[in-house]
């Protein structure tokens, strides 16, 4: 019932609706530009939201995340370049469809699948998150620390190609988080007498550096690679581009199944959209009646990954809102927004800011409808508009914007320096298979993890056995090591298995 009240409240607030609409458009454009991700856009726009109302700020960034995930499919279908990592699975069937002159039809299927997937994920979040929050309220510091620990291990080992480099990324980030004054004992750590460092390293410049400036470096390196766009004129193929019920009907079971796959994967911290999209694609292909058509232009091959990719969006907020554990980089950025506006995240959020949370969910639902409508009717035009943006002009503008955005967060040139160094580090991390996502998410986890570890040690008089004598804590430790073991096994299996070309 609360969600209906929230929906009514949001719809009758024209300013908020304007922010949601702006977010739906910005997210789509940014997601569709190859190389730029929703995370980059959110990181860059984050300082602007400091000057907004908390709900407008959160809704603006949350909806950019949603529409950015969808926008990636436009680039995947039209340019054969995934706009986001998650839309790489959409590219497998999307681009062959475009080559057949069916780009508009593929984009309509991508839009409908994304909207349905995102809607299912959001509804599951709305009805499930309260339950998780109630359970989370009963957990003590040892249980919470083992949840953080499991999240560290899963995020570091699952994302990226190397477990060792993933763990190193997380460890590096934890150590950078330690710079500054210890909030419990007021002891200075790793400041080396530098005044700027006593305030610690802020999340905003680091994120802008890793995701925005790092991407500018990557684009400069890949400047000579030109994007090929399919030039087949869809207007000549109006008949085959009309999406009929007969075309769409076989996609529905794939959309429903993939939405639940995406929602389940979304709840697990660190298991982002790209994993969900590929799992859904694989599962869809395995169950498909037209398995042979998958990979050469099957509409179902677009529907399955797109539904899963967007279904991740809502449920990935569940660990963030209930435990303060961001499930994705977008979640990590949203933590910053909550904290900047003085809203404590975690299980108590549903007691202290219940109305705000439901208003945010309502904005999410409206954002889905808006990007769905815009995408269904305008995606092909948007794709063509993006090809008109000269990259030689776009990336220098992004470069300059990242500097002023980093400065605007705290009005400090030290933050701008941190951003520049993080930019080079982010580029190097991507180049050498380190894990920028683990690097950023670990920052947000580090504070809570340290606090709960030290509280646990106080409870046990510095004994580490407290983590194995409490069943819930032991369970999460088991999950962490089991996930690590499974990942190591799958990597060993991959290196031993002969390569094959089938996707």
């Amino acid at each position: 019932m609360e969600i209906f009240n929230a929906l009514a409240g949001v719809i009758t607030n024209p300013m908020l609706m304007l922010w949601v609409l702006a977010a739906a458009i910005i997210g789509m454009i940014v997601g569709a530009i190859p190389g730029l991700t929703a995370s980059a856009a959110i990181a860059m726009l984050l300082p602007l939201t400091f000057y907004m109302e908390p709900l407008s700020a959160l809704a603006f960034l949350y909806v950019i995340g949603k529409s950015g995930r969808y926008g990636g499919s436009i680039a995947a279908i039209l340019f054969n370049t995934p706009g986001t990592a998650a839309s790489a699975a959409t590219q497998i069937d999307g681009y062959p469809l475009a080559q057949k002159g069916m780009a508009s039809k593929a984009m309509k299927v991508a839009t409908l699948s994304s909207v349905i997937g995102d809607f299912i994920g959001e509804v599951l979040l709305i009805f499930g998150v309260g339950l998780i929050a109630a359970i989370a309220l009963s957990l003590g510091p040892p249980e919470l620390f083992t949840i953080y620990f499991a999240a560290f291990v899963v995020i570091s080992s699952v994302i990226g190609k190397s477990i060792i480099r993933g763990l190193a990324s997380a460890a590096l980030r934890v150590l950078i988080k330690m710079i500054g004054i210890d909030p419990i004992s007021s002891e200075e750590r790793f400041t080396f007498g530098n005044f700027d460092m006593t305030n610690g390293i802020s999340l905003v410049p680091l994120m802008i550096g890793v995701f925005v400036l790092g991407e500018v470096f990557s684009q400069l390196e890949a400047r000579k690679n030109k994007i090929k766009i399919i030039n087949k004129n869809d207007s000549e193929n109006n008949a085959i581009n009309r999406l009929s019920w007969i075309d769409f009907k076989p996609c529905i079971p794939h959309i429903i199944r993939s939405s639940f796959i995406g929602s389940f994967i979304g709840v697990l911290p660190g298991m982002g959209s790209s994993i969900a999209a590929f799992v859904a694609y694989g599962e869809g292909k395995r169950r498909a009646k037209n398995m042979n058509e998958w990979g050469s232009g099957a509409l179902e091959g677009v529907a399955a990954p797109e539904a899963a990719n967007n279904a991740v969006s809502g449920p990935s907020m569940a660990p963030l809102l209930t435990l303060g554990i961001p499930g994705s980089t977008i979640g990590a950025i949203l933590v910053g927004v909550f904290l900047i506006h003085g809203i404590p995240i975690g299980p108590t959020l549903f007691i202290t800011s219940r109305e705000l949370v439901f208003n945010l969910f309502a904005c999410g639902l409206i954002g889905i409808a808006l990007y769905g409508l815009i995408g269904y009717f305008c995606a092909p035009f948007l794709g063509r508009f993006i090809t008109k943006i000269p990259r030689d002009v776009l990336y220098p503008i992004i470069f300059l914007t990242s500097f002023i955005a980093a400065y605007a967060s705290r009005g400090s040139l030290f933050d701008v320096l941190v951003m520049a160094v993080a930019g080079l580090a982010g580029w190097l991390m991507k180049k050498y298979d380190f894990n920028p996502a683990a690097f950023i998410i670990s920052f947000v986890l580090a504070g809570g993890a340290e606090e709960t570890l030290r509280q646990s040690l106080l409870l046990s008089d510095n004994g580490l056995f407290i983590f194995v004598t409490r069943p819930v804590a032991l369970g999460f430790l088991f999950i962490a090591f089991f996930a690590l073991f499974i990942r190591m096994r799958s990597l060993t299996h991959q290196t031993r298995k002969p390569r094959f070309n089938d996707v």
Partner: protein
Amino acid sequence: MNLQVSTKNLSQGFVIGVVLTTFGIAILIASFQIDKDPGGGWGARIFPMFGSITLLMAGILELRFGLRNTQTKPDYIPSNILVLFGLAIGYIFFIGKIGYLLSTGLVAPLIFLVFGVKNLIGLFVSAVLCPVAYHLIFFELLGVFPPYGKWFDLLNVIQGN
């Protein structure tokens, strides 16, 4: 086992391993400089210590795999990336010395040049338009306090201070 590693057959993993191990050792040593709790508990030291041990272990493992696999050679940082990074650091330095407007006016055309824009009129337009646009959006519209230059600031002249 041949442990002689010449610079010619250094693998990517080996180089990364050396960097991680060095960082791990340095941070571990720095962690021990952090005081323990007055009651004898690990206190503020424990988390940095765990982090540095993880980094050290990751470095040793990378070194081990790097010594086995010499196929992937370390890449060098391309010159255009170094130029862009140098411009970034120079830009920050000049913002602090000559203020935001002038430094952006100087750096903007150079950035466009690095990205391949060679049109002189375009470069001149970027030198004027970029500082003005960013100044209006961030410092006037959003009310962010601008970074003033220590040596000279055009904003002081414009505002008549």
